């Protein structure tokens, strides 16, 4: 049912989602920690910026990325100066877009998990003379495990399901930027409904399994 191009699109999508998830966890963890521990004016502004991708249509994000990452855009000139070239139509362009697009899906569960922990375990750790760094790795992260799992799974799944942004800045290049969602769209537009069905069904089953696994794995946070 699935042809070589479909499989290439699936492989590329998994590679994109995995790369994005790893980078997002590294970026979102300190960001979410800071947001959870700060109630100030700045935290509110940053929190709103992080949430923006949830409310913006993907074409808006894609369009602005196309402008800013291109030869006439600031970021484009920056990546060019670094010797990286221009990012639209490349794998790393998709990674950058996915990080922005999936950011709230990583930050929000982490932020919630950190907030639930509260100040008490940190104070206890401090009285036992644990350094802040030790506290973070030995106390905070283990307690925030369900949030971390949710953040990872949601980032991965949301990147897999990405469509509008990759359509805008991807350039639909086989093996490089043509991900599953775009491949399905291609099949539908080309009236190849059988192939569209096969790939779409694969997506549907995958998404269901991911969400089911998330609900099964993620036991409620235990209070101490």
């Amino acid at each position, binding site marked *: 049912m699935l042809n070589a191009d479909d499989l290439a699109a699936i492989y590329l999508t998994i590679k994109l989602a995995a790369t994005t998830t790893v980078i997002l966890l590294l970026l979102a963890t300190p960001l979410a920690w800071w947001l959870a521990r700060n109630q100030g004016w700045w935290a509110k502004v940053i929190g709103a910026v992080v949430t923006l991708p949830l409310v913006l249509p993907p074409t808006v994000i894609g*369009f602005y990325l196309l402008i800013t990452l291109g030869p006439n855009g600031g970021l484009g000139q920056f990546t060019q100066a670094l010797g990286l070239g*221009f990012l639209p139509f490349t794998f790393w362009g998709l990674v950058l877009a996915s990080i922005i697009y999936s950011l709230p899906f990583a930050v929000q569960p982490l932020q919630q998990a950190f907030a639930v922990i509260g100040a008490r375990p940190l104070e206890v750790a401090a009285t036992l003379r644990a350094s802040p760094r030790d506290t973070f790795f030995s106390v905070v992260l283990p307690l925030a495990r369900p949030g971390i799992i949710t953040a990872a799974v949601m980032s991965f799944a949301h990147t897999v399901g990405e469509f509008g942004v990759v359509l805008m800045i991807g350039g639909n290049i086989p093996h490089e930027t043509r991900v599953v969602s775009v491949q399905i769209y291609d099949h539908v537009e080309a*009236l190849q409904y059988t192939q569209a069905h096969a790939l779409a069904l694969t997506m549907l089953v995958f998404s269901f399994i991911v969400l089911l696994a998330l609900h099964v794995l993620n036991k409620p946070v235990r209070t101490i």
Partner: protein
Amino acid sequence: MLILSVALCLGMPATAATVKVAAASNFVAPLNALAADFAKRSGHQLQISSGATGKLFAQISHGAPFEVFLAADDEAPGKLAAEGLARKDTLFTYATGRLVLWSSTGNTPNENTLKTSDLNKLALANPKVAPYGRAAVEYLQAQGLYNGLKSKLVYGENIAQALQFVATGNAEYGLIAASLVMLDGQFTLGQGWLVPAQYHQPIRQDAVLLNLGQGNAAATAFLHYLKSAPAQQIIRRYGYQ
């Protein structure tokens, strides 16, 4: 507003009706001009829904209430007729598209541009789904340029997105529909070079009367009007053949 509507109605023939038209995105600009002219001549109004041909095809197959279909190719209307959703005897080519090598910056492309310049990216519509993309690939192959440029090609999901890639500066040149950037033989946007039509298969855009339009005399009248000299003249102003 009410007075205005009443006044407008009084000026029209008693039989004025509305035609629901599904049209390919690349034809929207000429279609608006055609709608105005058609309304002036017949009193009938067009209600235009635009989108990619494949998407409109899928919608029509699943019962979308359109009466006339103006596709960007000659495949989708034929398929609808074969499936019994459109009237086969009403199929005809209403416009033939022209391909243009286009740039949004100051440098004007010519027939040697793709052979000589060291360009970064060349944008075109996805050849799998868009007739203009297919024509672009045929042109590149006819000129022996395809293999050399293969790594430079980026694909928009349709011709408008290919234009966007060029307009935002991410691709230096694009092979796009002349209708998007030309009016009365002049470029209204950027600069370009009309690719001679002999380098690719004709980009035929077909129209068809859908089953739902059979009872609507205005729908038949509109298709009839599309074939007329005044309508064809308007269509040619927008860079179609």
